[in-house]
């Protein structure tokens, strides 16, 4: 079981994610943005940060880097992909996840510990965490306001693709959405940072539960089964 973490120029949570993935019991490896080869990893994490400075629009430039072609192919094969914060923005810009992440309603960068509710436990990202579970972890972003058109939002709800919701919406996200998954179910993104909530010393290990279920799902070779 190996987790690859994409490193774009400007990624700044790549080594944090690597550290947390190892705490979750998996092998981790950093994947360089210029390479269109995933080195045979089972799971790809697109970490937080400011890829290419997040200039223009968060995530938009990263979408064109060589590694994203490989990530798209991996996703198309049913491989698991998780975008955290900036990674979520990249996945949304790349069209691998629905919606867009707009400037926070406050027009300010927000760092805060939030509580999110796990909405679904039938996903490889939340397997083993009962729906309704509350998890605490930090958000840290300037563009995290989840937006999609009403019809898309309705479809997301109907299909059970809203994975996480804020109890205390920090950014104006529509319907308090903190994380969603793709139609195929194997690609997910969330704005909060599970990798920063992976050790009691730092406040809590709630986030580690998410990473563990991701690692567990991939490790059990169940990935394909999650793909609808």
């Amino acid at each position, binding site marked *: 079981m190996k987790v690859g973490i994409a490193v774009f120029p400007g990624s*700044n949570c790549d080594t944090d994610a690597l550290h947390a993935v190892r705490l979750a019991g998996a092998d981790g490896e950093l994947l360089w943005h210029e390479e269109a080869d995933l080195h045979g990893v089972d799971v790809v994490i697109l970490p937080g940060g*400011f890829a290419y400075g*997040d200039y223009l629009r968060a995530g938009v430039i990263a979408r064109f880097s060589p590694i994203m072609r490989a990530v798209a192919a991996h996703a198309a094969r049913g491989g698991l992909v998780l975008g955290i914060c900036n990674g979520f923005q990249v996945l949304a810009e790349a069209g691998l996840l629905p919606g867009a992440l707009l400037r926070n309603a406050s027009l300010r960068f927000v*760092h805060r510990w939030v509580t999110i509710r796990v909405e679904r436990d039938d996903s490889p990202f939340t397997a083993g965490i009962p729906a309704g579970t509350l998890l605490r972890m930090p958000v*840290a972003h300037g563009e995290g306001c989840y937006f999609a058109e009403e019809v898309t939002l309705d479809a997301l709800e109907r299909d059970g693709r809203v994975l996480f919701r804020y109890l*205390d919406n*920090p950014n104006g996200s529509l319907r308090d959405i903190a994380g969603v998954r793709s139609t195929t179910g194997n690609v997910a993104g969330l704005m909060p*940072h599970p990798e920063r909530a992976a*050790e009691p010393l*730092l406040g809590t290990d709630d986030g580690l539960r998410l990473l563990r279920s991701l690692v567990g799902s991939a490790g059990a070779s169940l990935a394909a089964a999650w793909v609808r």
Partner: protein
Amino acid sequence: MAAVSGEPLHRRLGLTDAELGEIRGRLGRDPNDLELAIFSVMWSEHCSYKSSKPLLATLPTRGRDLVAGPGENAGVVSIGDGLAVAFKLESHNHPSAVEPYQGAATGVGGILRDIFTMGARPIAVLDALRFGDPRGPRVRHLVDGVVRGVGGYGNCVGVPTVGGELVFHPSYAANPLVNVMAIGLLEERHLTRAVAPGPGNLVVLYGSTTGRDGIGGASVLASAEFADDDPSKRPSVQVGDPFAEKLLVEATLELIERGLVEGLQDLGAGGIGCATSEMPDRAGTGIVVDLDAVPRREEGMAPFEVMISESQERMCAVVRPDRLAEVLEVCRRWGLPAAVIGRVTARRDLAVVEGGLDPDGRPRPGARELARIPVAAIASEAIVYRREARSPARVRSAPAPGAPVEPSDRLPERGTDPGAVLMALLGSPNLCSRAWVSGQYDSTVMTNTVEACERGAAVLRVKGTAKGLVAATDANATVSALDPHLGAILSVAEAIRNVAVTGARPLGVTDCLNFGNPEKPEAFWRFAEAVRGVGDACRAFGLPVTGGNVSFYNESPEGPIAPTPQIGVVGLLEDVGRRVGPAFAADDDLVVLVGEAVPGLAGSVYAELAGVAPEDGPPAIDLEREAALHAFLQEAAAARLPSAAQDVSGGGLAVALAEMAIWGERGARLDLRVGTAPAVELFGEGPSRAVVTCHPDAWERLAALADRFRLPLEPLGATGGDRLVIELHGEGSTGAAEDRGAGIADPVDVSIEALRHAWSSALPRLFGEVDETGRDGAGTVVA
């Protein structure tokens, strides 16, 4: 650069006639225009420390763990196991007054570069900010821009901003202070110095391209009184590019880890001219600069513009020729332009050549030498002034310990409930919650943050070890305004106390000295007194000053700022698991006051609210007592005696207790013996005190330990309930105050919820960002 006005060039560049004479003396001839431009920047106050150098030399710089002290880009102290921390405080006041966002952003960028230039990975930023009265829209605009700028840069680079200060005082209205401290972690074997050894080695400039931005920016701005408000006359502003900085961090650390560089210097004030003179000066070499090789982002730049541009996010490396290819490859991979812009030579001068160098570093045929200056003349042997210091006519100094002439126990109004005073203090701009600011900073990136902001010192774990680092910044400007020597001592004491209260052992001190115009004897006297104070305090605590920064000319037409000796301290916890936090941790813990109040309310927040008796002074400090307190706190923590600890500072004991209650979400019932005067006991800011809580079982050992350090210890009561209740007993409570019907004997009795509301809603309200849902701008629930 031709003279357009009648003024001779050197004066327009800010050099005096006497300085021109000195330059001639050092060169043995007239300088040409390019040389003069380089001198003007390098001999600016900002780059040369010409007014402060002799005094800074009096600061103690030796310490048992010191790896690198002043003179380097940042001080470095060993923390054992082959690891070391680099840290430094630096100001970016003047640029921030002009353009708050970019000024603050580039301030963060500059201090981060000082850290990674040493081979250390930056792991934390603390921002110490000072502004005028926040009720003014102009000040709020500055606060908003500076906070966005600090966050905009630090958040993007991915270094957590974990602490700092936000202080309002009218003297900063036109001249805000933006002091930023950065901390880095390195393997000692990777320590890198800003030297240019080995004639024949190559000088590589990498990072952003060089433009006209910031020509003379920081150095000129920070070296002249800032009064001219005409935008067209202001020097151009630098724009920070945190993305480029992030790439620069990664590329630089990779170069260092792979052993590819012989020396490294960041480009800040003075630009290429500064780096290519300071680095060889430290190594006893020289450098010849191939001007055409400098990658530029603008056409038609004059040689002087290229040499002194302060374009951000650039680094200068000295590289062995056989390692050049590897160095360039690292830069390419990180997307950074890089070029060989010169060579190290054996002649101790800086030569600037146009027309190119041949592969051996000799000017090509037809090349022109534009400048040649002995490097010492622009670096180590730059001009130094022994400025005149004269104390102001009336200096207010601390009263001797003991009762002041008139009891300074006035509460704002007769019969006022001390609980209401406590609420007013907690809701005052200088004591209320800073969540509105800290919530705009990423404080948890890098996953090391154990405690950030808000609660005294920041605590970071050191991955791969059991260790923790603790950091705090402090400056007592209000007392410094009354007595700069005492103010500086109190600043150092408080910063160290903040670190010691967690149980950490302080490692060293960095200082950023913000003062007025050093050419004015009274301003210089304040500076001299402050330096003496920092030195006295550091010697008393046995700590070295590892580096710092001086910012002069903090004046506006309304006058100088309050003298502000900003102090940064880093401490070490051998076991981060044994840190002591400041929040009440459990019910029925004993609440103990260590140390005792000393009279003197002047300079306190209470005095701002209530005024003080005319003859009252600031509180005195007993340095031995203070040092004993620090040692006591460390030993107590090592023995796991305290369940919580918090130092007594702004707002006094009552505010310290209120914060512990707010953070611990539980109250306490306490009895306070009033020895001097109630206001002094409750709200006085006398030093050398801490509140410690412990399990009742630990009390005897705690008392024995205090006894060993000859520290008075007073059990006040126990934690629990949802109110903070402080009953006042003893002579002071029934003496003069009660005779005058001041109602002092009333207890403090306030609900924790009310305290929390007063504390947390004040700043968002000031900034008009409490919305209908009762959330402030940073999203913290306020109601």
